[in-house]
């Protein structure tokens, strides 16, 4: 065939293509168009921002009218004033205080007053389906909101955004450290705006997040491999529904949610009745994770990950917080003692769309 012939053949070929209308192209390229259903009815999102949900007003006037709690250094100064003239040993002072972090007790009364967050407004979900006295009203006006953790930590400055060191660093360590990578995958999605039956699977991921050109924001479209190093213990499937772009999931009995400091293995929170309420777009999922947080595990994680030194940055006294959490705990009573073991809580999250690569699957597929 001469080159002329080749050229003519080619010339004829695309003419048929031109008859395809743009609308048809839109249909045939659903993966890009993202009109209703995501590609294959499946879409993944990876966690890119995460904070304990606190309702904060200007100057904390509404929620902390009595001021903020004091932390380890202030408590130490009060317990062991320098000018007291008393001679003390390391064991009776610093080590005793340090020991309290790990051998938590509510047996004796906290020698320091603890300021719970006040007011009637908090973020969160109605976890128990009831509206009771200690429940909150959401800023949008929904009642029955369960978030007793808000009471416990709302007036500890380390947890408050945007400058609290826990608020800032805990999030930084999440996005900067693949150990904390957490993602969800929706499957069986017919329409990302409305679908009364979708499956949501939780995974840990293995890979770094992809930042934007400023290096500060995150972009959709990255890839995460499923982290199988913990077997199935972090993988969980629940049912959910999407109404007007908002995904709500059925509560799980127990969910392990990774939350660790760099270099400290095994950090996670144990949630009971774990639920998601997320506003979905093809690129992001934003909203709340909520559930009853296991108090012992919360404090175990806190103290393994944050030293007294670091807790002192934001006046977080672990011993006082433990007592407050035990006092405010509102779910999952111990069958033997009847004492509640878990505290209602909510987490603000932003997630970005991500391609999830399952074990044994090639990304190029």
């Amino acid at each position, binding site marked *: 065939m*001469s*080159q*002329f012939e*080749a*050229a003519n053949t*080619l*010339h004829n*070929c*695309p*003419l048929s*293509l*031109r008859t*395809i209308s*743009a*609308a048809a*192209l*839109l249909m*045939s*390229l659903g*993966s*890009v*168009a993202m009109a209703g259903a995501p590609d294959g009815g499946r879409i993944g999102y990876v966690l890119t921002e995460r904070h304990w949900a606190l309702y904060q007003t200007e100057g904390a006037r509404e929620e902390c009218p009595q001021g903020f709690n004091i932390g380890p250094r202030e408590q130490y100064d009060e317990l062991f004033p320098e000018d007291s003239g008393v001679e003390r040993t390391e064991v009776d002072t610093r080590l005793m205080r340090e020991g309290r972090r790990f051998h938590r007790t509510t047996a004796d009364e906290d020698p320091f007053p603890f300021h719970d967050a006040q007011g009637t407004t908090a973020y969160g979900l109605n976890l128990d389906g009831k509206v009771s006295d200690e429940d909150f009203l959401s800023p949008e006006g929904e009642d029955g909101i369960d978030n007793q953790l808000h009471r416990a930590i709302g007036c500890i400055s380390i947890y408050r955004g945007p400058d609290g060191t826990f608020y800032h660093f805990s999030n930084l360590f999440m996005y900067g450290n693949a150990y904390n990578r957490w993602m969800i995958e929706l499957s069986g999605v017919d329409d990302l705006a409305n679908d009364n039956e979708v499956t949501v699977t939780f995974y840990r991921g293995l*890979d*770094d997040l*992809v*930042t*934007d*050109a*400023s*290096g500060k*924001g995150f*972009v*959709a*479209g*990255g*890839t995460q*491999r499923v982290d199988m190093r913990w077997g199935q213990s972090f993988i969980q499937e629940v049912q959910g529904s999407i109404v007007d772009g908002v995904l709500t999931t059925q509560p799980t009995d127990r969910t392990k949610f990774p939350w660790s400091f760099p270099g400290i293995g095994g950090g996670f929170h144990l949630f009971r009745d774990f639920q998601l309420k997320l506003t979905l777009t093809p690129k992001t999922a934003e909203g709340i994770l909520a559930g009853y947080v296991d108090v012992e595990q919360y404090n175990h994680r806190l103290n393994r990950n944050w030293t007294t030194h670091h807790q002192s940055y934001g006046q977080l006294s672990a011993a006082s917080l433990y007592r407050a959490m035990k006092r405010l705990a509102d779910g999952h009573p111990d069958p033997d003692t009847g004492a509640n073991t878990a505290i209602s809580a909510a987490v603000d999250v932003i997630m970005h769309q991500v*391609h*999830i*690569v399952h074990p044994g699957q*090639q*990304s*190029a597929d």
Partner: protein
Amino acid sequence: MRLMYKRAAPHGSSKVFCAGVLGFVALVMLAGCSESDPEPETPGTRALVSLVTAEQYRNSLSYIFGPGVDLQVEFAPVARTEGLLANSAAIAGIGSSQLQGIQGVAASVASQVLDTKHRNYLVPCRPESIDGPDEACATRFLSRVGRLLFRRALTDDEVAMHVKQAGSAAEQLESFYAGLEIALEGMLISPEGLFVVERAEPDPENPGQLRLDAYSLASRLSYFLWNSAPDDELLAAAESGELQASGGLERAVDRMLASPRLAEGMRAFLDDMFAFDEVKTLTKDSTIYPEFTRVTAEDAREQTLRTSIEHLLANDGDYRDLFTTRSTVMSPALAIIYGVPAEPGWTPHTFPDDSPRSGLLTQVSFLSLHAHPGRSSVTLRGQALRERFLCQTVPEPPPGIDFSVVSNPDANYPTQRQRVRAHLETPSCAGCHRITDPIGLSLERFDGAGGFRLTENGAVIDASGGLDGFEFEGAVGLGKALRENPELPRCLVQRVYSYGTGAPPAMEARPALDYFNAEFAARGYRLRELLRTIALSKAFSRVQNDPGEESNPEYQEESRISVASSR
């Protein structure tokens, strides 16, 4: 059907006619050329004095001293001449500030080579005493390094000179290695290393003709195929006469073509041909394309180079198929733009048959490089396709034009097609834009960052386009049309020959180029075959001039007279 094919200009690039009406220009048929045709007689190229590039300098030093030596080398950027930076090596000079930089590199390299970590294996002997000169050991080190640096064996006088310098410095500094370091530093800034001076000699097989001498041929081959100075084996072949003995050139070229260093060499060539030096300064408006980062830009370059090397060398593929292939490699940063998953590192990736992506033109490198920071550009893409892949030149817009005719004041025109229509309706613009814009319009479904889109400002994008008489829909059609364009392989041949010989082909190289084109076609458009044909050709090693002669004042006087009398 309006055809805009032109015969490939024998020299450098051809200017595309920008007149509104183009004459019919016949397609050049290659009929009649077959494998058995011998190479036509051509006068060869000019023997040149070329400045090595930073990459060549780096490659040579890392061959000599191994990968353990950290080489932070940056040379002044050179201008692109007739499509290639390589064509400027024979005219580029070294400014004072650049030489200061090179001196800094030389000092750093020399101190690393002779530090306690490296010298035990980089210096082939131990001095009698480390506190002073040692002639024998210095001679062994400096003659070995000098030969590799200067691409030829050093004369006894030269070795003696360097050894003497090392000796007196060693005495002064009371250290054998410090003396050696100072002498090596001097070698590293020597003009013998920085400039490649090609020398001619009479060709014994063709009386009256000149050819490159053996060392110069070795250098030309090595920079051509490996982008580095000749290795020990090639120098040995030049030194012994083996390179120019019967079958010697074939043996040397085949060894080089089989070496893994060929991939490095061809990466350098393609990087130059694709003008990827531009990637270094490619940035996008981060408010418009937040997903396009520096990593994206560098990965885009890497993706195209890897795709090309894999296709052309590893798979021995048809060059033309590069513009339709759906096989590539993917990185996580690029995957964001392509909208596909990718695992860490580089992984093979194949675009599915219904994907709008196929071939190099649909890769992020081409699409983002030839676009504005905040939007696509039909003109830049069309121009780039013609200049990079068809060796044509699209002229700059004439000066003094009031460009507002093309900037439609009604910003409500949603798509580029509507906005650039003014180009085609304005006679002073239409000539050139008619040859660029229809190409670019077929790539309009890719935004300025290379991402795929179906709409712009809410309007559906019409991606119909044209290239030299072919009309098609979208980028896939463009790739197919380009694949069949006879100028496509001819342009590669021209660039490869030009790259290998260091200058744009002169008019009289025309028959040689025709021969290369025919051979390239006959051998299925395989790059390695093309390299072999060119490297073994007389047109590669034959030269027209002897720089040594030209430097002779009498010769210069004569040539001046002959030029004057010929007027």
